[in-house]
């Protein structure tokens, strides 16, 4: 486990009551949303992989609340919370998990590939480390177009070992790009513990050799995360240079739903759970007199109801039509007049590939078709 730096009390001051309550609400939404997503996965309403961010809510909300509306946020395959924190409609996030047409990405991306352009959530990406160059590209465009916006790029401790990490740090520092890199250090790259995957476990130092100075925040503490991220964003916006922020946190659930968690002890998980960011922050608000017990319970009930509505919405949303299969591969125009003009086999679907002829209801195991179980994943379904 990485060393955690205790924050001086004066820095841990809460924001204004309305702001603090909004933060708590956002953290609650992520927690309840993720819990329900896990349940829906167990019921096979959600397919593929499902990576939950339970335990990382303070990192997500503390950092995203430091952003301005026009700033870009980019994240990883564990990104339901990020897009929710940026303001995405929970209905559409859940519908994306269900693979339905009303999903944020029309059911094309699924859990690992959320995207909400309107709210400047620039995507969850399934390739570890793949999002770093993109983030530097956003920052390059902001700089080039002389816009005030900055980019916050979040990735895990595991991604700090990818080649793109060093390459992007170097380029961002060399070109003085307005970007903040944030390592969500949840102590594990999938099932490999930090000290087993990184020679340097003080991850904030990992950018130094590339000219990117590091800072660390307590990722279990929304206020500290907010403060440190705010300073990093200020440096990006005003001083036009990148920084690397290590947010020290922990995920309470497995890497994905398909994770027997043989790589860590229950004791370690329990130790971290004592610092559950949702509980700690809620308690802080109560101690500060911002929130009563009843109000806290009412907030939680409302949040659960909100997530219930999202589940109902997702369930009612139709599956994409087979006719949608080839939509949006290309921007159509003068050069690409239809997908078939690129496929070029025939302008009409040819034998064996007439997807529209395939009636879902006629498929074997039609009920399960909504959430195809990937090979090797079935045995883990009942976990949690």
């Amino acid at each position, binding site marked *: 486990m990485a060393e955690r730096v205790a924050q001086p009390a004066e820095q841990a001051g809460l924001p204004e009551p309305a702001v603090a309550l909004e933060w708590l609400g956002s953290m609650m939404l992520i927690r309840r949303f993720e819990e329900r997503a896990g349940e829906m996965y167990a019921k096979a309403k959600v397919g593929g992989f499902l990576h939950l961010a339970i335990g990382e809510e303070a990192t997500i909300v503390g950092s995203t609340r430091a952003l301005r509306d026009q700033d*870009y946020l980019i994240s990883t395959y564990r990104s339901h919370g990020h897009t929710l924190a940026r303001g995405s409609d929970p209905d559409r996030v859940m519908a994306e998990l269900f693979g339905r047409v009303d*999903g*944020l*990405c*029309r*059911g*094309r*991306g699924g859990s690992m*590939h959320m*995207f*909400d*352009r309107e709210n400047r959530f*620039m*995507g969850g*990406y*399934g*390739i570890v480390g*793949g999002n*770093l*160059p*993109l*983030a*530097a*590209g*956003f*920052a*390059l*465009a*902001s700089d*080039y*177009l002389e816009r005030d916006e900055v980019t916050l790029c979040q990735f895990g401790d595991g991604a700090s070992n990818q*080649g*793109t990490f060093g*390459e*992007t740090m*170097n*380029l961002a520092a*060399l*070109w003085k790009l307005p970007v903040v890199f944030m390592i969500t250090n949840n102590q594990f790259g999938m099932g490999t513990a930090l000290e087993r995957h990184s020679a340097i476990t003080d991850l904030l130092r990992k950018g130094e050799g590339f000219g990117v100075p590091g800072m660390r925040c307590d990722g279990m503490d929304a206020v500290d995360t907010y403060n440190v991220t705010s300073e990093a964003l200020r440096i990006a916006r005003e001083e036009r240079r990148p920084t690397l922020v290590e947010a020290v946190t922990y995920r309470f659930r497995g890497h994905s739903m398909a994770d027997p968690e043989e790589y860590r002890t229950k004791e370690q998980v329990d130790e971290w759970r004592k610092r559950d960011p949702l509980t700690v922050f809620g308690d802080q608000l109560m101690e500060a007199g911002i929130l009563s017990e009843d109000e806290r319970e009412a907030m939680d009930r409302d949040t659960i109801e909100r997530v219930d509505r999202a589940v109902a919405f997702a369930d009612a949303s139709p599956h994409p039509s087979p006719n949608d299969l080839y*939509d*949006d*591969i*290309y*921007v159509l*125009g*003068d*050069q*690409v007049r239809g997908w078939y*003009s*690129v*496929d*070029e*086999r*025939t302008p009409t679907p*040819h034998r064996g590939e007439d997807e529209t002829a395939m009636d879902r209801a006629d498929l074997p195991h039609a009920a399960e078709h909504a959430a195809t179980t990937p090979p090797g994943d079935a045995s883990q379904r009942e976990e949690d």
Partner: protein
Amino acid sequence: MAVMRYREALNSALREEMERDPNVMLMGEDIGVFNGAFKVTAGLLDEFGEKRVRDTPISENTIVGMGVGAAMTGLRPVVELMTINFSLLAMDQIVNHAASIRYMFGGQVRVPLVVRMPQGAGHQLGPTHSHSWEALYLHVPGLLVAVPTTAADAKGLLKSAIRDDNPVVFIEHEYLYGQRGEVPDDEDHTVRFGEAAIRREGSDVTIVGISRMALTSARAAKTLSEEHDVEAEVIDPRTLRPLDLDTILASVRKTNRCVIVEEGWPHGGVGANLAALIQEQAFDDLDAPIQRVTGADVPMPYSKPLEQIAFPHEPQVVDAVLATFRDR
């Protein structure tokens, strides 16, 4: 019309598009102060400055990825990779990101990015600098793929690529950089993707030549006419995604014979794919099996004589054409 070299035609396309659109910018290794490894970007740093012509570190995956990100947020980046061989380092950003992003995010975003790079053997550069991999990029939905052969096409296709809103893999050829050709003076000279060029008309056999092999095929056609009384129609597809299959099929329906010539490897190659397309849609028009002439199925050797026999030359094309007449 002006006569210029292929590399000069590319240079003028870049210059004109940068003048036309302030959001077109260039990134690549040694494209600025060094003027480009193959001098395609010569003079552009002086003309447009460091903001728009950026020398990068040797970080292929990241410079392509930054191009993807910048394309998603308002720019039209043109990234140069020194050779197609190095593009494998950027395969993740080209395939998993540039090609997939629009689709996987439900059409919310565009990626108007061009990745330029040359390919081709013949300079004794051995197995890491000499390959031809248009087939790798042809394989990927979401990409457009250009393989220009002439100076006019190099310019016209590059201008179209930069103006297009899709990610384009633009494959140049090291041998062709020095070749001269006539290029229209018109600043709006563009060549639309998906339109093949018939380089030579003929009635006896269709030869489809990819990239430099369109020139090799044209030379073979001349020999076939002079020495074997065979009139070959030579088609240069110019782009592989989209592919102008109609022009190829119309030719095959006329000649009833087809030979496909490419510099890349045989298995899973452009010719393998094209032969499948032709037999699917023009089987009854074929009087002989489709012949393929490809690079040898080996990593490119350094030795000059070995290298020369490892990629197609005119005699191999002539032999392959004559093989389609063997039943005569």
